[in-house]
């Protein structure tokens, strides 16, 4: 019944109205602008982070598998004491020998000890017991000297590797191969320097001094039933699944579990971590969504308020429009379109600010946000939400306007 021109002209009218009251419009739309801008920015940053992390996972971790001790769910503690479920080095050896789909495996155990060089003594340095395969599983290379050999492990030789931060902190010579360190009271020969990784987002960022020793020496520094985990790498990402079931089978056999018994360990592939990360990310997105919800609510109330003011300011105009033939629906649509236009304008400004923020953070070095960008769905959602706020909060003032009696409205001062 209303011609298409009407809608077009109502929007033009709304834009003129907004333009005529620039300051007021900006203040009114502020809630929406802030809400949309902050959410867009958060989503942009999160999207960037996700892209980055996932691509890191893909390049470095698709073939990686983790073995962790695990008490079967819902089982009483006394049936599965720690001694029964903890991983043991002998199990790592068995996995290494029996799993054909594995390229390498290493047990890993960490502790912190005092480390002494000729020049410096440091307390609480992270000391990690590893096997040679660690370089492959962690994708961290030796930059000077050599990695551990199998003999180092088998014979529990007192050799160690350090990262370059440890070289700096312990005031070692830049090429410290051949130097000695006193680690937890024992004398170790430095055989290699491991690269320090600060750029990668693989979950464990190296940011402090680290010392590595052959895993077989770890028990000298640890309690009897100390905690260890295994990290393995499959021959290829394609074989990760096969490796997982193989490891599971071997471990169950070693542990003498019969077919009905639950696993007392967990073999996790990287995709499970990816899933975890994704669920964290969507959790953050949901929180951001909650924030936008609140600010849109606040913004919406602002819109409703200003539209009520607008309706009462323009009561005479409404009366006149009705007198010359505007139906209640036409008046309703006119005010609704004005609210929606105002909200969409606010949404647009918000998206632009969010986009600017995303571009800004993507240039922060080392923040892992260089992939930050506002995804199309977020832009679409921002506009949908803005329009929705316009409709919901503009409805009451618009209905009020549409119900005005023309004669009374024209008599309004």
């Amino acid at each position, binding site marked *: *019944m*209303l*011609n*298409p*021109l*009407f809608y077009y*002209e109502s929007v033009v009218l709304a834009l*003129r109205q907004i333009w*005529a009251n620039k300051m007021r419009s900006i203040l009114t739309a502020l809630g929406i602008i802030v809400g949309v801008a902050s959410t867009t920015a958060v989503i942009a940053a999160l999207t960037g982070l996700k892209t980055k992390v996932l691509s890191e996972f893909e390049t470095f971790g698709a073939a990686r598998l983790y073995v962790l001790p695990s008490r079967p769910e819902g089982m009483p503690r006394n049936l599965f004491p720690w001694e029964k479920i903890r991983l043991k080095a002998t199990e790592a050896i068995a996995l290494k020998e029996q799993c054909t789909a594995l390229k390498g495996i290493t047990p890993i155990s960490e502790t912190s000890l005092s480390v002494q060089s000729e020049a410096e003594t440091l307390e609480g340095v992270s000391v990690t017991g590893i096997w040679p395969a660690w370089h492959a599983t962690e994708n961290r290379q030796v930059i000077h000297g050599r990695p551990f050999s199998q003999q180092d492990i088998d014979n529990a030789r007192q050799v160690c590797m350090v990262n370059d931060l440890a070289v700096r902190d312990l005031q070692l010579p830049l090429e410290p191969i051949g130097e000695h360190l006193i680690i937890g009271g024992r004398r170790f020969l430095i055989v290699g320097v491991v690269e320090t990784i600060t750029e990668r987002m693989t979950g464990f960022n190296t940011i402090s001094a680290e010392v590595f020793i052959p895993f077989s020496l770890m028990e000298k520094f640890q309690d009897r039933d100390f905690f260890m985990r295994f990290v393995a790498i499959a021959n290829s990402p394609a074989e990760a699944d096969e490796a997982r079931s193989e490891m599971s089978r071997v471990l169950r056999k070693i542990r003498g579990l019969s077919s009905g018994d639950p696993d007392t360990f967990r073999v996790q592939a990287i995709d499970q971590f990816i899933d975890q990360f994704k669920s964290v990310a969507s959790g953050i997105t949901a929180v951001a969504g909650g924030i936008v919800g609140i600010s849109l609510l606040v913004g919406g109330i602002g819109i409703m308020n200003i539209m009520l003011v607008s309706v009462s300011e323009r009561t*005479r*105009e409404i*009366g*006149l*429009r*009705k*007198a*010359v*033939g*505007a*139906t*209640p*629906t*036409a008046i309703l649509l006119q005010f609704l379109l004005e609210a929606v236009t105002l909200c969409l304008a606010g949404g647009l400004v918000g998206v632009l600010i969010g986009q600017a923020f995303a571009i800004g953070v993507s240039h922060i070095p080392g923040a892992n946000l260089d992939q930050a960008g506002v995804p199309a769905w977020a832009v679409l959602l921002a506009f949908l939400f803005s329009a929705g706020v316009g409709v919901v909060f503009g409805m009451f003032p618009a209905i009020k306007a549409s119900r005005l009696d*023309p*004669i009374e409205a*024209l008599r309004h001062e």
Partner: protein
Amino acid sequence: MVEPIIQIRGVTKIYHVGVEVINALRGVELTVPEGEMVAIMGASGSGKSTLMNTLGCLDRPTAGTYHLGGREVSNLDAAALAQVRNEEIGFVFQSFELLARLTALQNVELPLLYSRGKSWGWARERRRMAEEALDRVGLSDRMDHRPNQLSGGQKQRVAIARAIVTNPRILMADEPTGNLDSVTTEEILSLFSKIHTAGQTVLMVTHENEVAAHCQRVVRLRDGLVLSDTPSSEDPTVGPFVRAHGRAA
């Protein structure tokens, strides 16, 4: 006989203000044939505006019937009444009621904005119609002026252009010269006469005999009832003005 354009029977209008009941109209009877120019007169509070608003479909009577061009309109809903106002009635107000943000031309276009069943081409057609209406009231040279750039008489001309732009069946005016000086009043009245001469039915509320003298017929109200309904030349107070000016056959 040709169907009268306006025919009301037993129209009453009751206002409730708190506990007070105001009988603004108490059973008005009125018939207006097409092409007439009628003045509605009466003391303040006699119900002229109430009657005019009812005839203009701005308001509904409490009781009674209203046939506009043969169609019963007293029981239509708000949307249907809006359509009647849009298509059949042009209304001129005492205080002009122009929208300050719009130019003269845009003000005149306003009723056409709410015309039904039009498509994109309507924009150009509408503009042409508005220009033509402004031309008829002699304001072709003020089309892009805003109301605050116009004199009172010019504003009322724009308002008249807005009222006639849709080619309504009736042109109604409630004290159209109430806010104007006598010279301007004369100009506006000759404009109404000119429009009437072109065949337009005109209804006009006024207090002034000079104004009523431009009409063919005078309807006097008192306390919400029709007191007299005579040709203007026979009205006791308007008659002398008609004869003095030799107007209105």
